[in-house]
């Protein structure tokens, strides 16, 4: 790519979609790394948690017993990176018997219908 292709004025809507549970696979952790990097590009970033992805935000994760790193505190740090749009699908929470009180960060809980509209308005969707 030529250097002059890169226009720092462009602001696109980037959405990261998390639909997988943490620890069983590495996708949740590596997706979070992408979100953190994206913050440096001054784009319009949002992060969605739907299906088993809502479990990524469950309070009380305690991982020494499986010898893996507990990365859930990093979600609390997103605010400091100006990643403030965290959306959780209401239907996914309910199907798992969870409420907003079970989550370790403040999020916006949206119905499938509301979330669907926001998803449709994105320029770039990154999922894993």
């Amino acid at each position, binding site marked *: 790519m030529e250097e002059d292709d890169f226009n720092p004025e*462009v602001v*696109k809507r*980037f959405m990261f979609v998390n639909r997988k549970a943490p620890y069983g696979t590495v996708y949740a952790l590596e997706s979070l790394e992408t979100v953190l990097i*994206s913050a440096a590009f001054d784009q319009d970033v949002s992060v969605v948690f739907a299906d088993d992805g809502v479990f990524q935000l469950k309070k009380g994760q305690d991982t020494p017993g499986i010898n893996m790193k507990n990365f859930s505190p990093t979600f609390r740090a997103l605010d400091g990176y100006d990643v403030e749009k965290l959306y959780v699908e209401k239907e996914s929470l309910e199907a798992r018997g969870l409420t907003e009180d079970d989550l370790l960060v403040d999020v916006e809980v949206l119905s499938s219908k509301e979330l669907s509209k926001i998803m449709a308005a994105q320029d770039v969707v990154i999922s894993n």
Partner: protein
Amino acid sequence: MKFGILVNEGPFTHQASDSAYQFAKAAIAKGHEVMRVFFYHDGVNNANKLAEPPTDDRNLVKLWSELAAEHNVDLVVCVAAALRRGIKDDVLAPGFRISGLGQLIEAGIVGDRLVTFGD
């Protein structure tokens, strides 16, 4: 149109890399530009030059290298994902380079479309 492609899985185990390759080839055949293919998660294993599939099977590592050589496609392997999985310069196939996740975000900004393939 300028396409960026994200590949999340290694070769052979999942069809993701095959589908991404077929998509890239078809895009180029139609006159589009494939500006970058970014390999993340197990996708970094697509860059392992030691891969030696049976002779009657496709060799995805080689196919990606050839595509890069013929059509100037930028094949970028995520450094963090690659280190974790042991993909280093020692085993890097021709046409691939190791770089940061920023290259994925940049492809999203600069390209017209980002198309993702995974498990």
